[in-house]
């Protein structure tokens, strides 16, 4: 994964034409290319982060990019805690970002 977006025409690995897919991200339609991971689609759409930490609300997106850190988790078609960097995006996927607040006084402790 490059740190900057490369146009398909300039990509040295010369990808073949891919089908355009469309996914929903928090209700907004985002297009990507078949074969991209969800993280790939999100990054290419200009989203550097899509989750906030429970502790102090710091932004989180792709950190390791190889499935180890679990920082990039999203809810995919109702299944939560899916690693965006490991799940290939499928046309029509419904993606929701996740934010889990810390337990507060309303929760038994």
């Amino acid at each position, binding site marked *: 994964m490059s740190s900057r977006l490369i146009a398909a025409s300039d990509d040295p690995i010369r990808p073949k034409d891919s089908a355009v897919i469309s996914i929903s991200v928090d209700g907004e339609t985002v297009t990507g290319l078949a074969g991209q991971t969800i993280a790939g689609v999100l990054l290419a759409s200009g989203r550097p982060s899509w989750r906030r*930490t*429970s*502790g102090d609300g710091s932004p989180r997106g792709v950190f390791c990019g190889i499935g*180890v850190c*679990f920082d990039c*988790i999203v809810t995919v078609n109702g299944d939560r*805690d899916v690693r965006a960097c490991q799940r290939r995006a499928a046309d029509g996927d419904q993606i929701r970002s996740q934010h*889990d607040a*810390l*337990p507060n006084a309303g*929760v*038994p*402790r």
Partner: protein
Amino acid sequence: MVVIGAGVVGAACARSLTLAGLTVVVVERGAAASGTTASGEGNLLVSDKGPGDELRLAQYCAALWPGIAEATASELGPGFPSIEYDPKGGLVVATTDAGAVPLLEFAAAQRGAGVDARPIEVGQALQLEPELNPGITAAVHYPQDAQVQPVAAAEAFLAVARRRGAKVRTGTTVTGALRGSDGALVGVRTDRGDVHCGTVVLAAGPWSAAVAAVLGVLLPVRPRRGVVLVTTRMPHRIFHKVYDADYVGAVESSDADLQTSSVVESTAAGTVLIGSSRQQIGFDDRLRVEVIEELAAKAIRLFPFLAGASIMRTYGGFRPYMADHLPVIGADHRLPGLFHATGHEGAGIGLSVGTAELITAMITGAPSPIDASAFSTDRAGLRGLLGDGLLGDAMPVNS
């Protein structure tokens, strides 16, 4: 003076000593907070300690932590990561009929020693922890149990010490002792040069035995392996430190073979930490599947929903174990100039701040905040384990 070891105990000593106005150099072989400090769960527990000297030290520490957390945060400001002090309380449960009475008797004895240990009905326990296995047979709530993020705490203590002039030399290995003509320790040799000082505080956790040998004394502290499982993030469903009452038996035992006992809690990040194992296998850090299996199976006994959780990673470390289950805090009676601060086994995070206060009082000559004689090197529990004096024939070196 020199503090050897930049784990939480060495860092707490550096903090206390500099607050008392002393000049401190911290010497650390690796990186700060890279050993035992980085390998635990950050427990500040009174619940797992029976009446006695270690409990008194733990109670003293429990009283110190809130003030130290607050003072450290206000001194270092919002730009420094929080040490995440969280007085979340502990919940200890028995999972067998045979385990219920010993837990309640243990709690009663602790109450006699001033611990807030509240036996509660199973229904009340399920209010505190709705996901807990309803098949538990007894439960005791310990509101005084707390936790910190131990690496953040160690780094914060070092930062406070640095602001008062302490030097922290990481990547520096102690290679020998510098002795005065009277034989007293007057400094240390390192692979990056000699450091002269009046006093050496050895706080190298389970590696204190090796460093003590380099300095010329035998110290019978040994590594006791522990492993923690970390689940993937999930919504917070565990709210206290929850552990099986058989944990106390594992802590107090001296068995070298594998012992596991369930200790489960969630972190601010949403992961769940699952411990605990104890094994005396030297510094062997290889992954052992049978340990992971036992930990996972016992955690599910406490929290059945964990059967569906994914383990993201495991990590392990080495506790500094003493045969008589007490830390070593104070002057080495065999080698003037040397003080020890180690041997806390699995309780070193919690006991670090009180250990540092004791060491500082001993070095400055201030009145000791609590009686520390039980932690001395010449206590009865260590008789026969210290050899017969100094190792080898250390060369006097004029400072």
